[in-house]
C-alpha cells in the first residue's frame, strides 16, 4: 500500500445488549475499557478521533456527536475530529478514515470509537429509525426495513439454489456458539441448537427470529498508529494491509440480482489484492451476518465457495473452527448483537485479540496471520472490506 504502514495497536469492546445506559455513557464505558486494554495510551498523544455512529439523531436525539464523544473520552483532537455515518458499516468507515489519515501523514495516533444506542422505550420508534437507512420517500412508506429485504434475498437463494432453512440455522448455530465464548456478546449465556432455531417465530418469512441480528446497545474502541509508533504500544500489531469498498445502488428497485453480491466480490478483490494475498490465505474473517442468509451469500461473493453453494458450505462446517477459514469467531452480529456503529469496531478488536492470542481457547484460531473484516450497510448496497496481517515488520 502507498503511504505509511498503519496498524491497530489495541482495542476493547464493552458489554453489548439491552443496556441501562445512554449514548454518552456507552462512549465513556468504551473509553474506560480502552484505557485498561491499552494502558500506554496517553490522551495528549491522540491527535485525532473518529466516531462511528449510524443514527444518534434518531436513537439518542443527538447530532454533532464527535465533540461530545471527545469530551466524554477526555480527548482534545487537533488533527481530525469527525463522525462517520455509513449505516451498519459506520464503525468500519471510521476505521478506514483513521487508516487513511495516518497513512497520509496527517495523523500520528488516532482513536476510533464506534457506538450505538438502539434500545428505546418504544420499539416502533426504534424500528422507524431502522427504516431511515432505506430510501425514505420511496421504499419507506411500504414498510421497508432490513428484515423483509434480506428475507427476499433468502427466498430467492432458496428458489435459485435450493438453500434450506436448516442451512440458515447452521450459520446461526455456529455464530451463537462462538458468542457463548464472548462475555461481551448480547447472547453470551443463551444457547441455540439448530432445532431450537428452526422453532423460533417467523419475523419476515422465511427468516425466523434466530436468523436476524438484534437491536443492541454497545460500543467498542481501537487505537491506530503509524509504523513509527506501533512498538510504543504493542508487540502484536494488526497491520492494515488492504482496504476496499463498493456501492452500486440505493433504492431497492435498483438492487438487481438479490443473490449475487458483486459489490462484495469487487471490494474484497481490491482489499485482498492490495494486501497481495488471495481469499485462500485468510485464517479468519469477521463478516457481516446481519442475517443468516447474509453470511451464506458472503461465502459465495468472497470466493470461498462457488455461487449457490454457500448453504452447503455452512452446513458442512467449512466456516467453523477446523474448517477452511474461521468465520465470525467473535460470535457475529447474530450472537453479539448489532449496535450499528460499534459492530465494525468490535470486529476489528476481535482481529487484534485473535492475533494477540488473547481470546478464550474455545474460539482461538490457531496461529492466525491474515484476517478480513467485512461490513455491508443498508440493503447490501455498500460493501466495505479491510484486510489485516499479524505482527511482523512494517
Amino acid at each position, binding site marked *: 500500500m502507498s503511504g505509511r504502514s498503519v496498524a491497530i495497536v489495541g482495542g476493547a469492546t464493552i458489554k453489548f445488549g439491552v443496556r441501562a445506559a445512554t449514548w454518552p455513557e456507552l462512549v465513556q464505558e468504551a473509553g474506560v475499557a480502552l484505557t485498561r486494554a491499552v494502558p500506554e495510551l496517553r490522551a495528549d498523544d491522540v491527535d485525532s478521533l473518529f466516531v462511528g455512529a449510524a443514527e444518534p439523531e434518531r436513537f439518542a436525539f443527538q447530532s454533532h456527536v464527535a465533540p461530545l464523544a471527545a469530551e466524554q473520552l477526555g480527548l482534545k483532537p487537533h488533527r481530525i475530529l469527525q463522525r462517520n455515518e455509513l449505516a451498519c458499516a459506520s464503525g468500519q468507515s471510521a476505521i478506514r478514515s483513521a487508516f487513511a489519515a495516518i497513512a497520509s501523514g496527517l495523523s500520528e495516533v488516532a482513536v476510533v470509537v464506534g457506538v450505538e444506542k438502539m434500545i428505546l422505550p*418504544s*420499539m*416502533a*420508534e426504534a*424500528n*422507524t429509525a*431502522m*427504516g431511515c437507512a432505506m*430510501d*425514505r*420517500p*420511496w*421504499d*419507506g*412508506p*411500504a*414498510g*421497508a*426495513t432490513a*428484515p*423483509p*429485504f434480506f*428475507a*427476499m434475498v433468502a*427466498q*430467492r437463494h432458496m*428458489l435459485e439454489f435450493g438453500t434450506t432453512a436448516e442451512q440458515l440455522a447452521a450459520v446461526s448455530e455456529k455464530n451463537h456458539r462462538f458468542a457463548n465464548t464472548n462475555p461481551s456478546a448480547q447472547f453470551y449465556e443463551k444457547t441455540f441448537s439448530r432445532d431450537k432455531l428452526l422453532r423460533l*417465530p*417467523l*419475523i*419476515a*418469512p*422465511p*427468516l425466523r427470529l434466530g436468523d436476524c441480528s438484534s437491536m443492541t446497545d454497545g460500543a467498542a474502541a481501537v487505537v491506530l498508529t503509524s509504523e513509527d509508533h506501533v512498538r510504543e504500544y504493542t508487540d502484536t500489531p494488526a497491520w492494515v494491509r488492504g482496504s476496499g469498498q463498493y456501492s452500486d445502488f440505493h*433504492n*431497492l*428497485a*435498483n*438492487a438487481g440480482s*438479490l443473490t449475487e453480491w458483486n459489490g462484495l466480490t469487487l471490494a474484497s478483490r481490491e482489499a485482498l489484492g492490495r494486501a497481495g494475498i488471495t481469499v485462500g490465505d485468510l485464517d479468519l474473517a469477521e463478516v457481516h451476518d446481519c442475517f443468516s442468509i447474509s453470511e451464506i451469500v458472503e461465502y459465495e461473493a468472497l470466493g470461498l465457495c462457488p455461487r449457490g453453494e454457500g448453504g452447503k458450505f455452512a452446513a458442512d462446517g467449512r466456516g467453523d473452527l477446523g474448517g477452511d477459514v474461521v468465520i465470525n469467531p467473535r460470535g457475529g452480529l447474530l450472537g453479539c448483537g448489532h449496535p450499528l456503529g460499534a459492530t465494525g469496531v468490535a470486529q476489528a478488536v476481535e482481529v487484534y485479540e485473535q492475533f494477540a492470542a488473547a481470546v478464550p481457547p474455545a474460539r482461538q484460531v490457531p496461529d492466525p496471520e491474515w484476517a478480513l473484516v467485512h461490513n455491508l450497510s443498508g440493503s447490501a448496497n455498500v460493501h466495505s472490506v479491510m484486510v489485516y496481517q499479524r505482527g511482523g515488520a512494517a
Partner: protein
Amino acid sequence: MSAERPRRRSTAPAVMAEPTASTVPETRPAEPSGPAPASKPREKRPFLLDFFPLETPDQTRLHRFYERLREGYLSTTRCRRDGTLHWPPRTACPSCRSEELDWVDLPDHGHVYAFSAVLAGAPLGMEDDVPFAVGLVDLDGAPLRLFGRIEGRPWTELRIGEPVRTEAYDIGDGRMFYRFRTIG
C-alpha cells in the same frame, strides 16, 4: 454516475420539462383504474416520524408524480437526452445529468419477483398493518422492478411469479401513494 462528465454545466433551466402524455414504449398503456378508496382517516404524525413524503408543489419538484397518482396512473421520469428510464423519478438524469426529463406512465401490471412479509418490527404508524406483505415486482414490458406493499391475498398464499396490478391509494390524510394488488 457515469464516468463521462459534461465539460460544463448544462444551460438547461433548472425546472422539469412539462409532462407529456407518452408512456413507456412497447408496453400497453396503463389503464386508469382510478385511485382505490381512501384508507381510514390517518392520524397526523410529526414529519420526522412519518415515512410518507410531502407531495405538494411547494415541497417537492416531483409533485407531478403524486398528482398523476391521484389520476390513477403510476408514472416516472425518462431522460429526453439519453432515454434512461428512472426509478425513482428524478429531477436530473443520474446517467447524463440532463435536467430535460419527460414524465411517462408505467405499465399497470407486473409479476412478483420476490416477496416477504412483516410479521413483527413494523415502524410507527404501521403496527396495525401487521402482518403485511411486501415485494419486488417486475413491471410487464418495462425494465423496472419496483418495491411495494402487496395487498389482496395474504402472504401465505402468495407465490413468486404472482401476477399483480399497481394501485394508487389515498393514505388517509389526502396524500397519495402506490402499492400492488393481487389479481383474482
